[in-house]
Structures are given as C-alpha cells and as structure tokens.
C-alpha cells in the first residue's frame, strides 16, 4: 500500500512539481513523439492512397461494407467516455480522489474524440463531399437526412467534442493562470496569458466558476451517455441480425466506460512514471480506479451475457445463427479472445495485491483495451459476414494493410496529441490538488482522531 497525498505538502511545491512537467522535454519524450509522428505518417500515406484509388483498397466488399474504421471509431468514442465519467460524475459526487487524475482523463476524452472523428472521414467513400452531411443553408436547398443515426452521431459527437473541450478548458483556467504567473517568457507566456482570460482568482470569478463547472458537469453526464447510445443506435436501429438488440445502448455505454477506465490506468502508469507524479497519482487513487474498472468490467460482462442470452433464448433464428457463427466460424479466435480479455482477465483486478501492482496493471489495462477493441470488431465483422441474406455471406473478407495502417496510425495520432498536451498544459490540476489538500487538512484539524486508509 503506497502512501496517499500528504496533507502537509506545500502548495508552492505542488505548483513546482506540476510545472516541471512543462519544462523542456527529455530525450525519451522526443523519441515517443517521433514514433507517434511516424505512425501518423503511415496512416496519412494510407489515407492518401485510399482517397485517390478508392475505398476498395481497404478490402471491404458489398456485403461487408464496414470494417475496422467503424470498429475503431467506436473504440475511440468509447475511450472518450471515462474522462467524462471520472471528471463529471465524481465531481458531482465530491469524490476528491479524482482531482489529481481527471485532467489527463479529460484530455484523453477530447483527443480520443478527435481521433474518432477522423475515422468518420476516413470511412466515407466520398470524403470530399463530407459537407453534404452538415445542415447549412445551401444553393441546392437540401438538408441532410435528420432521420439517419449517422446525422445524430454527427450532432452528438460535435456536441460532445465541443462540450468536453469547453469542460477541459474551463477546468483549466485557474491552472493556466498559474502557468501564466510562473512562466515569464516566450510563446507560452503569451499563450497562457491569452488562454487564462485574465483570471486572478477573485471571489467573483471563483463563484461563477464553481457554478459553471458544476453545470457543465451536469450536462456532460447525460451527454456522454447519449453519445454512446446514439453510436449504439447506428447498429441497434438497423435490422442487421445481432445488431437489432435492445440492450445495445447500455452495452455500448458500459463498454465505453470500461475501455476508458482501462486507458486511464494505462496513462496513469505512464504519466506517473514519465513525469514523476508519484506524489499526486498515488497508489490509493490507483486502487480506487482499479476497483471502479473492475466493477464496470463486470457490468460489461453482464450486459454481454444478457445480449447473448437474449439472442439465444429469443426466437430470432437469424440472430442466433449469427451468434453461433461468431463463436464457431472464422472469427471464433477473435471472439474468444474478446471474451477472455474483456471478461476473464479483469478478474485479476479483484485481487488486492494486483490492484497496486503497476507493471501488471499496465499490461492488463492494455489487454483490456485490446479486448474492447476486439469487441467492436466483433460487432462489425462477423455481423456483416453472416447477415440476413445467405447468398451474400462473406466469410473471407479480412481488412487490408491500408485499413490496419490507418488504425495503427490513429494510435500515433492520439499519442501525438496527448504528448503535446502534456507538455503544453498541466496534466495534473494544481488548484484542485490544493483544494483536496486543503479540505483534508481541514478535516484533520476538525477530527484529528479519524485517520483511515483513504
């Protein structure tokens, strides 16, 4: 059991520790950044090739019209949900352990949304016509089809992206002011000066800040739920066997939270190691995080079982055929891998000794995300391969290198954005850690006797 944040830590120390993470990057940082750029380069190359040659190079087919792009799109959308969960829900519940970690979680939300958005574009057969999807008055006098779940998606994701960027930014204003006050030269100074909007921590600012932050948090929770249930409606609204399932929206939301939490664990370990944030990203926090992840994993497992059993027990033979196909057909290895990574592996998290074992958690959390990615693919791939119409079944359609290249590159893109963010903006919320320390000190002062584990 590691120690928690010290109540007597000097506030100036907090500033100093966090601001240190903004200082000149080390070699390792550049290496990671370059790798990320190279990955993005691969993806950009693939996309240019695909754009010019046609969607066919991704090796989809007429019966298999979607593939990894959509699977990865859902994956990234899902990934974005935990930032909101940690930040907004726990904020409303006054769970103060969120404070040191919510900032990077929110950044993760924003960046994974930005990654997800790219997949929508990459997926389009006529990317150059994407503006047809936007509702704006035009010389054709036509509008997009508001009945389409894809348009809902567009609205939902746009809303979610702008709201979470706002949320991230608003929550960062006091910290930006700190940066402004502590960095005295260069473009950063200007950047922070502009972005901090002249924040001085006056009582009026704090008062309005509190209510604003709370309000947006309130909005974000239903928004996050709606975003992923709308993404789920892309599938549930269709008549594809295996998609047309009532439990899809909650299943998607649970899956989203799950993969998000796993990603937070991964990034937690990385940031703690890279920026030496042991003081703030403490093991007790990790423990809470792991427990939360475990709980969500079990919810997800349950919903998965519900989905399978309702298909199995229901009378839709088509959907049942498809379930059997998933479990026994050419996709079976991936299907069972998904079950293993998604439902069996997280059982490790239930053991106390593993809950703070960082190297293990790092590995496990990555595998959980692999499992969750497989889950999305298992929704797309086998369903198309084995739909309503036996004549057009297509069991031999595997994604081409172009698809893999773009999917691979998306991780680089995310890493790139995240790395840049970490160097430009404080990835631990300084003012909230101070608040946390302050409130704990107050609590200690008032009730010195009680000193629990957390």
């Amino acid at each position, binding site marked *: 059991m590691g120690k928690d944040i010290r109540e007597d830590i*000097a*506030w*100036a120390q907090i*500033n100093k520790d966090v601001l240190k993470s903004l200082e000149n990057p080390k070699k390792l940082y550049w290496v990671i950044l370059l790798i990320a750029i190279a990955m993005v380069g691969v993806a950009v190359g693939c996309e240019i090739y695909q754009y010019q040659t046609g969607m066919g190079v991704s090796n989809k087919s007429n019966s298999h019209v979607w593939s990894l792009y959509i699977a990865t799109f859902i994956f990234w959308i899902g990934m974005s949900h935990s930032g909101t969960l940690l930040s907004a829900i726990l904020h409303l519940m006054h769970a103060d352990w969120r404070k040191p970690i919510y900032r990077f979680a929110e950044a993760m939300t924003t960046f994974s949304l930005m990654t997800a958005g790219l997949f929508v574009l990459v997926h389009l057969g006529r990317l150059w016509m994407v503006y047809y999807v936007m*509702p704006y008055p035009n010389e054709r*006098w*036509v*509008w997009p*089809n*508001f*009945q*389409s779940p894809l*348009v*809902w998606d567009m*609205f*939902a994701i*746009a*809303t979610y992206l*702008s*709201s979470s960027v*706002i949320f991230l930014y*608003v929550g960062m204003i*006091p910290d930006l*002011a*700190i940066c402004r*006050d*502590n960095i005295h030269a260069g473009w950063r100074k200007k950047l922070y000066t502009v972005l901090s*909007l*002249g*924040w*001085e*921590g*006056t*009582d*009026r*600012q*704090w*008062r*309005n*800040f*509190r*209510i*604003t932050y709370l*309000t*947006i948090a309130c*909005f974000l929770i*239903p*928004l996050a739920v*709606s975003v992923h249930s*709308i993404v789920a*409606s892309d599938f549930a609204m269709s008549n594809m066997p295996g998609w047309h399932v009532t439990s899809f929206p909650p299943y998607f939301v649970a899956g989203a939270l799950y993969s998000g939490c796993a990603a937070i664990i991964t990034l937690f370990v990385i940031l703690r190691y890279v920026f030496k944030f042991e003081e703030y990203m403490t093991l007790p926090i990790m423990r809470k995080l792991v427990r939360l992840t475990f709980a969500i994993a079990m919810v997800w497992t349950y919903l998965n079982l519900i989905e399978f059993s309702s298909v199995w027990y229901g009378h839709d033979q088509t959907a049942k055929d498809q379930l059997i196909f998933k479990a026994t057909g050419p996709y079976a290895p991936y299907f069972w891998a998904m079950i293993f990574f998604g439902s069996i592996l997280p059982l490790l998290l239930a053991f106390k000794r593993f809950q703070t074992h960082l190297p293990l958690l790092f590995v496990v959390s990555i595998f959980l995300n692999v499992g969750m990615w497989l889950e999305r693919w298992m929704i797309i791939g086998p369903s198309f391969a084995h739909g309503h119409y036996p004549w057009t079944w297509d069991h031999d359609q595997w994604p081409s290198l172009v698809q893999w290249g773009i999917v691979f590159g998306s991780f680089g893109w995310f890493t790139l954005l995240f790395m840049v963010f970490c160097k430009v903006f404080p990835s631990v919320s300084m*003012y*909230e850690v*101070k*608040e946390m320390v*302050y409130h704990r000190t107050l609590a200690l002062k008032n009730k010195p006797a009680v000193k629990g584990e957390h």
Partner: protein
Amino acid sequence: MSQRHLLALFNDFDEAVAAISELRAANIKGFDFDDLILKSPIEHPEVETVLGDRPIKVQWFTLAGACMGGLLAFTLVASAQANFFSQIKAGKPIVPLPPDFVLTYEMFILGGVFITILGFLICAGLPAKRSPLYSAKVSEDQIGILVKGDEAAVTAFKAIFTKHKALEIQEEAGK
C-alpha cells in the same frame, strides 16, 4: 478625488477572513465594501459569509441557452424536413418525432453548454484586463485582498491588514 488600490497578501485564510470582516465593520470613509476583491489560489465558498450576498446569475443563462437550443433545434430540423423536397423515407413520417427528439436533446445540451459559458464569461467578467495590483503569489498559496479607496482610506486599510498579519502590502505606484 483619486482612488488608490491596495493589495494585501495573507498566508492564512482565517486571517484574511478576519481582515475582511474588520474592513466591513470599520466602515472606512471613501471605501465601498463592494469594491473589495478577494483573490485566492483555490475556491473558498466560506468567504461568502463575510463578503455578503453577491448573486450568481450563470444558471439563468443555462436555462435560457438550453431551452433556446432545444427549441431552435426542433424547429429548424422539423422545418428543414418539411421543405419542398420532403421525401418519404422508409415509410416513416416526413417529420418523425423520435429522431427529432434525439437532435433536440443534443442541441438542448449544446445550447446549454455554450450559453452557460457565455454566461460565465459575462458574469465573471472574463476575459478581463489584469487588475491594477496582482501578485503571482495569489495563484500559488496566498490569499490576496484588493481594496480600492480614497487616498485617505489607505492608512486605515494598512492598519487593518497589518493587524491581520498580512505578509505583504502592495500599493499602486505613482498617481
């Protein structure tokens, strides 16, 4: 009559509160209590008891924004669907309610968030020019009290601040 600003920095929040209460009670001539600004590195809702009733209006923006967003979305979407090109799609009505409600919902939130931010900027007076006196310490760990008063009141301020163990008192230079 010219006014001067004075910023006092405190280490201890309780002392700062005490200073404020005293400023309020002292009823110094040439000093309007409403001009007193507290600056702190973290939020101190407790201070409201001494600062008095300073209303928050952001929530009204939220309400207006959310309602406007939702209403506007529904009207726009429905009337766009009912344009000249209205085409039956999949046997559903031209203006189908479930999809429109989904969009209304999203825009309700978006409107809410945007106008809330607008409200926040308006109510918090942001973006703002830096006030005449500011110390970086305030964003670190010290509490600052910024007062504005006639020349005459400066001495009174100083007395109170010093009494409450102000670490530092800054005065507006010149003028």
